[in-house]
């Protein structure tokens, strides 16, 4: 009897280890994460409008239907990225996600404080390679450091009433993300 109890205990302990290991390796093995879902519908380093979620079809779960969204799937290996998002009528935000979907930075139109949200996205290595004089002019440039060389930028704009959705979608079409050629 005692021996079986020991086997049970060993099983439970091993179960705890299995649990921790599966939780830790899951993000690296997931095939249906947000980045993979957007890979099939968007080009690298361009802003692509995300189709509005419907009951039959949504690119990712838990999208806010009151928002128009666009995605820029970025790859910083060719150089830093410049992002320009015009502010729309009500509320505009830009959120940055790593390859694994962790939100590492987000900013809204009021925090950006201008008519357009303008940002430079680069890896920490690219940032330390910036010439010194660039660093001075960088004071009025917003620089975001990406922890991974690939990831997602989600641009979202709120349509406060359903009737305003077409106008908000149009405004988002002017958003740009491109590799900064001069640096």
């Amino acid at each position, binding site marked *: 009897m005692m*021996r*079986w109890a020991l*086997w*049970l205990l*060993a*099983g*439970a*302990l*091993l*179960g*705890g*280890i*299995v*649990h921790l290991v*599966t*939780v*830790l390796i*899951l*993000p690296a093995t*997931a095939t*249906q*994460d*947000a980045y*993979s*879902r957007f890979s099939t519908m968007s080009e690298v380093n361009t802003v692509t409008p995300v189709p509005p*979620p*419907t*009951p039959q079809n*949504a690119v*990712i*779960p*838990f999208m*806010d*239907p*009151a*928002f128009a969204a666009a995605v820029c799937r970025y790859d910083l290996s060719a150089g830093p990225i410049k992002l320009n998002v015009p502010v729309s009528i*009500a*509320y505009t*935000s830009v*959120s940055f*996600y790593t390859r*694994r*979907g*962790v*939100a*590492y*930075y*987000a*900013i*809204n139109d*009021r*925090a950006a404080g201008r008519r357009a949200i303008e940002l430079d996205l680069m890896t920490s290595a690219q940032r330390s390679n910036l010439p010194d004089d660039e660093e001075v002019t960088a004071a009025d440039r917003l620089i975001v450091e990406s922890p991974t060389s690939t990831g*997602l930028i*989600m641009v*979202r704009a*709120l*349509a*406060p*009433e*359903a009737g305003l959705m077409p106008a908000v979608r149009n405004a988002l079409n002017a958003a740009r993300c491109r590799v900064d050629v001069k640096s």
Partner: protein
Amino acid sequence: MRLIFGCLLAFVIAAAIGLGMTWLTLSRGTAFGAIPIGAWTAWPKTGTQDADPYSRATIARSGELPVGSGDGVAFLARADDNGKALDGRCDVLINGVTPQARFWTITLYDSQGQLVANSIERHGFTSQEILRHADGSFEVAVAPRARPSNWLPTGGIENYVLMLRLYDTPVGVATRAAREAPMPAIQVRSCP
């Protein structure tokens, strides 16, 4: 012989406990960094780089993108104020006020995070659309059949969840109590 049986038993138990716990924690959500206010729970840390391994795994598995902390915070309700799972065949009333925020939206999803089909194509309300009382509070009737005022149709599905997202809000990682963030009550009025 006994040794083999013992090992097999241990492995089976390990697999069942380990995978079962993983599945359970990822589908239910964990208490790490959770802010429960009434029927609502927010995980503001999930929208930052300090997200714990459980929320990272949840995000990767479901494919959702959490609301970033510089953007806002999302509160999820799976049950009413009495802890009973939200049922789309019941008449449910949400009433009260929301925490301070520039905008908020309330949205109804099925348990997988998909919108629910309904005849009027309404899936939620924004803070601008909703009809309010004179004191600024509001009521939303979540019900399978049409209701006057703010009606959020459930499509009659068995299980649904509600998500209240606050945009540009002081509510976040530092929020501790319901006093700082008053959330609306969720009450079942009648069930067939």
